């Protein structure tokens, strides 16, 4: 378990993966219970929210009948256990609001979320890695200063403002892009930019720091003094070692992007998971919220696991870091 232990064999990696997957169970239980409790103690219940959406005030009997119909008149623990028992048998339930199955809702929301997450991560990596290296190599020069300053700007406005500005100028004024999403790829450009601009701003600085750290290592000087060309060292060793930072960054971003980005989805009319869960929380649509939370926990753990395993393959020295972080 300590960082100095020798490289693990394939069997150990497999055992490690299994152990991590098993740890999903307590996390899943904890997260779903916490969600249920939070929703339960918040002062509105689904029936009230539903009736508030309709703007009417029906009699108490109607409210009570609806509560009974949804099973909301049972004690909290019973409701949760009932949900859990159905979940174990593969039934995630149906939405209180429109009666559509939760699995169906997740599947409908997923494509938009996946599209947005993938495109924005790709654009971010494509821009931030070269820019990050550039600023590191030219540390302290004007290029460095300009790029760093731009990276601050990209990261200094709330993303809904950036989104509205993009829509206003590039869609309405210049007419280059549609405002309402369609199935064509062109409608992905602006939301991708809205997500990628601040991420790039942040990651340029992180990549720069990682490359700088590598450049400061003795092996770089050693390699150069042995007569290797700087760019060979840069691309063969420095970049390879800086990959760990990049992978960590990506894993964190993908995780949060796969949870949906409510504001972007709303503004660009690309209803994905973020949009789904925001409206579900507003309506106290318990089954949908639970379905989402399960999805998030699984995504979180799987991404974390993949990241750790990839460390193992990228850098043998990390091998036994598994289990610590």
């Amino acid at each position, binding site marked *: 378990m300590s960082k100095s232990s020798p490289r693990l064999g394939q069997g150990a990696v497999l055992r490690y993966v299994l152990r991590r997957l098993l740890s999903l169970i307590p*996390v899943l239980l904890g997260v779903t219970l916490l969600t249920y409790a939070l929703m339960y103690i918040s002062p509105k219940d689904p029936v009230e929210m539903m009736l508030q959406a309709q703007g009417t005030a029906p009699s108490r009997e109607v409210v009570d009948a609806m509560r009974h119909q949804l099973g909301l008149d049972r004690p909290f623990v019973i409701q949760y256990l009932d949900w859990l028992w159905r979940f174990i048998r593969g039934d995630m339930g149906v939405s209180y609001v429109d009666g559509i199955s939760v699995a169906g809702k997740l599947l409908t929301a997923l494509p938009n979320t996946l599209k947005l997450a993938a495109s924005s991560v790709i654009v971010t990596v494509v821009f931030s890695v070269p820019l990050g290296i550039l600023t590191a190599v030219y540390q302290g020069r004007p290029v460095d200063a300009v790029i760093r300053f731009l990276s601050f700007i990209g990261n*200094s406005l709330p993303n809904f403002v950036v989104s509205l500005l993009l829509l206003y100028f590039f869609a309405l004024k210049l007419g280059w892009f549609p405002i309402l999403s369609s199935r064509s790829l062109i409608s992905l450009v602006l939301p991708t930019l809205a997500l990628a601009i601040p991420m790039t701003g942040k990651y340029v600085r*992180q990549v720069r720091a990682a490359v700088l750290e590598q450049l400061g290592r003795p092996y770089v000087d050693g390699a150069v003094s042995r007569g290797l060309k700087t760019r060979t060292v840069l691309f063969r060793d420095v970049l390879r070692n800086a990959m760990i930072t990049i992978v960590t960054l990506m894993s964190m971003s993908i995780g949060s992007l796969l949870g949906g980005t409510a*504001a972007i989805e709303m503004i660009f009319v690309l209803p994905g998971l973020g949009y789904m869960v925001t409206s579900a929380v507003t309506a106290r649509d318990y089954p949908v919220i639970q379905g989402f939370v399960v999805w998030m*926990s699984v995504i979180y753990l799987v991404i974390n696991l993949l990241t750790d395993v990839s460390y193992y393959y990228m850098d043998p020295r990390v091998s036994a870091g598994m289990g610590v972080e």
Partner: protein
Amino acid sequence: MMGVSSGAKRKMAVYLAIFIALCIFSLVSGRLAPHDAEFVDLLAAKRAPGGEYPMGTDWLGRCIWSRILAGASSSIFASLVIVVLSMLVGCAIGIVSGYAGGAVDEVVMRIVDIFLAFPGIVLSIAVAGMLGPGLKNGILALAATSWTQYARLIRSYVLSLRQENFVKAARLNGQSGLSILARHIFPNAIRPVVVTGTLHLSGAMLSISGLSFLGLSSSSAEWGSMLSEGRSLMQQCPWVVLYPAIAIFLVTILFNLLGDSVRDVLDPNGKNKVLND
């Protein structure tokens, strides 16, 4: 490149001074406002900048310049409080978990996992739903989701410091756990935490306005909610969003510059790779 240049230190001192000056200014700026920031005058609604209202008025005829001045303290201190609160909670939990190790560590880390896997938006909306919308509750909601990064960060430092010889020596000398923590581990582990904290400031500032976009706004003058409440007037009365946006923009840039310079001084080798979200 390895040592901390005096230039970096000077830079940090300058940004720190500006930052402190800004904090002090924001405490008194409300009193410099030419109008009552909450004074509603419907007959003066949506006036363009000029004359009595240097930055114009909003949809309720409130003076935007006065609201920016009055909102400075809540906007700036809200981000400070979010960072400090999550730092304190995260560090306390992380240190205990890392130092105690074993079963305690295992349990704490699973709890951290639960919070990390827990979608921040669900938590934020649920907290706002329970406590009501408002700045204080928004701060609580955001702190509740961001303490985990500090816990994980400081725990990993504690774990590695525990292996260091000076800690082992202290233990052999019979020092108590608490004093080892206080004398040897905490001072060494706090640097990366401070770096993460300053880098976190700008993110915290932006998340507050994100919350108010989702309808969890505070009603008082606060830059983020001014921006999000006024966004439907972006085309008709651009000044309603322009000035709060500039205010947020400038302060976030300052936070970013400060964060970077603090990192250059405290963590020059870029060891601190745990990132804020």
